[in-house]
């Protein structure tokens, strides 16, 4: 058992924090959204320079072969800085899907460019009617003229507007709820059959609705191997859960620290508000919640890496459930401790609640994971 970062992880985290402090201070982040930009290109270049885009890519393909454990402090740093970079969408989600679902040729074709940060891909799997069901796929794939054509709608494709192509799940056989019968495809963003509606989410990050109308698609591997597809989807969702748990715990940490600073500096009725026992007790409750998010972000990372281990599936559900609830509590309390200023767009603390809410809704919200744990009772 071990909870420390190793030397490389520590060094990388430190460099990343420096980069983000430098380029992603809250005022710069506000200016970024105000400018209409989807992300900060210089930061993205900086991430690539630090080797972060290469972190999850296998060593043989120019990466560092890092897992969810290595991504944990990285995602926490992104959460703290309210990052809008397409890291989750491209490096974590699309990257994992390709690593688990694509044949060697396609991996060799794509992953080195993703490692260098030149290529941004996006994961397009969720559908509106599925809501929190992890394997609901209505999008259809059909063979046509020696290739494949896809029809369907993918929702909340994170950073979709930045992607050169999409990793898309589509159904070859069966009903939308069937666990099998799906395959993963690569779809070029410029294909004539692709229509992308871009929008901001409530946390200011960019996402898209991807409408596929006879979009040309290339299978990642043998499309008949639907077991592999299922494992690739599940592995990608697991990587996503671990990443957003880490991100939420970083966001909660930052909200907590803002609130503690405020308690220590803000005066009212002639004394520091941090002298009020009621607020002090709330601060204590926040720390308890915060520590739970940190612990369960670790559990999620370990479970995503060790997919075969006995309790991994349960730990992923438990982590998503516990981190979302506890991080939300921290954010609510942090706003409350700030009073009016905490309700404003121009102050950071409210942005953490918005981020945590968005991340809670990805890969199944807290309630849906409680329901899945309940369904897993023997």
């Amino acid at each position, binding site marked *: 058992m071990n909870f420390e970062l190793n030397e490389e992880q520590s060094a990388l985290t430190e460099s990343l924090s420096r980069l983000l402090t430098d380029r992603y201070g809250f005022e710069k982040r506000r200016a970024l959204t105000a400018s209409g930009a989807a992300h900060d290109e210089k930061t993205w270049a900086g991430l690539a320079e630090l080797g972060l885009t290469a972190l999850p890519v296998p060593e043989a393909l120019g990466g560092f072969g890092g897992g969810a454990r290595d991504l944990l402090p990285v995602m926490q740093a992104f959460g703290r800085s309210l990052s809008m970079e397409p890291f989750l969408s491209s490096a974590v989600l699309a990257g994992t899907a390709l690593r688990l679902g694509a044949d060697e040729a396609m991996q060799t074709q794509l992953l080195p460019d993703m490692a260098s940060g030149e290529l941004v891909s996006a994961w397009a799997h969720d559908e509106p009617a599925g809501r929190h069901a992890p394997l609901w796929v209505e999008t259809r794939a059909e063979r046509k003229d020696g290739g494949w054509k896809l029809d369907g709608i993918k929702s909340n494709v994170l950073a979709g507007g930045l992607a050169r192509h999409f990793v898309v799940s589509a159904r070859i056989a069966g009903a939308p709820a069937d666990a099998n019968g799906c395959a993963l495809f690569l779809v070029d963003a410029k294909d004539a059959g692709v229509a992308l509606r871009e929008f901001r989410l409530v946390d200011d990050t960019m996402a898209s609705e991807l409408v596929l109308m006879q979009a040309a698609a290339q299978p990642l591997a043998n499309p008949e191997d639907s077991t592999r597809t299922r494992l690739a989807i599940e592995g990608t969702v697991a990587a996503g859960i671990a990443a957003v748990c880490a991100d939420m715990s970083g966001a909660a940490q930052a909200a907590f620290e803002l609130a503690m600073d405020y308690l220590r500096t803000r005066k009212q009725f002639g004394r520091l508000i941090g002298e009020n026992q009621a607020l002090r007790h709330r601060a204590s409750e926040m720390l308890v919640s915060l520590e739970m998010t940190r612990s369960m972000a670790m559990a999620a990372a370990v479970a995503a890496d060790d997919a075969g281990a006995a309790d991994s599936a349960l730990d992923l559900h438990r982590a998503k459930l516990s981190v979302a609830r506890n991080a939300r509590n921290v954010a609510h309390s942090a706003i409350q401790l700030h009073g009016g200023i905490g*309700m404003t*767009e121009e102050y950071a603390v*409210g*942005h953490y609640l918005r981020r945590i809410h968005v991340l809670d809704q990805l890969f199944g919200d807290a309630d849906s994971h409680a329901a899945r744990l309940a369904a897993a009772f023997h």
Partner: protein
Amino acid sequence: MDLDLTPEQRAFRDEVRTFIRENLPAEIRERLRAGHPPRKQDTVTWQRILNKRGWAAPHWPKRYGGADLGPMERLILLDETYRAPAPLPQVFNVGMLGPVLMKFGTPAQCDHFLPRLANLDIWFCQGFSEPGSGSDLASLRTAARREGDHYVVNGQKIWTTTAHLADWVFALVRTDPEARKQEGISFLLIDLRTPGITIRPIHSIDGEHHLNEVFFDEVRVPVANLVGQENKGWDCAKYLLSNERTGIANVGLCRERLDYARELAGRYTQAGKPLLDDPKLRADIAMLEAETRALEITNWRFLLTDSEQRRLPAFASVLKLKGTELQQEINALLARIAGPGGLERRPADEVAHGPVTPRYFYSRAASIYGGTTEVQKDILAKAIVG
């Protein structure tokens, strides 16, 4: 003991319900139902319709154009407004300034302002809070010095709701810098077109523009716009804050949002099944409905029990605390129902997709504005522990 409306009250409720159904423009109703805040024009339109019917100022006496309704009738009108849903009466005009003018204003002030307040010919906002004052309102620093028949105002207000929509502001200003805290404050009516006033928007975490900062730089206000006596503005403020509490529990709002939760959950599906089939979600809605019912009856008790037993203003804090908690839980539930589909920030004019998720974020203000939860608990503790 009896929880029913009297036959007269029932008739009044039916009359109100019919009136709203027949007179509320459909597009306003739809916008509010989807969770949008009313536009300025919505509020103006509806208040003028109500004013024609004599209901624009439910608790004002008739001689000032009010409806002179009793507490239950006011609550019925409010509940039906939420139920529709229709825009609420403009609170600064009707709920706050009107009663203050009637109690402290000169006959000339009443004659001039009251009809215009009721008809929303003038939109007032409230200038109380300042940076640094927060819950400690009396520590305000915006100053007014007397120069002949004018006050000259300098300073800054913050959290000024609807200042960007408003024509006038009623403000607390310090007219005697030597006096201790509550003394030395005066209550002024200020035309926002006066030179020296700057309004800066504050966007809230729901992305909307509700609030503003208002800066005063050598702003000249006629002494005729002083309400009550100089240096006695704190009396006006106290009266204003304690005056109209019919709506403090927000029961009608909770009910309307819970009805909408059922509607939305019936409309959405998850993996092919109606969301409303989820027994956990149903039990959560049922629990909130039960607590809303408890709050509703408590609110009635507050309105109808004699004032000694209801321990004013402590009992009002009970209503505020419980109402706040329920509003926040209900809005969180709605955001959960909206789910991943509720994450997209949509333009304000998309009536079909209301800002359910942003409204959840904004609901965190319920425990901050109008006296924080901590302040309410302090008040309550004073009354029950001593």
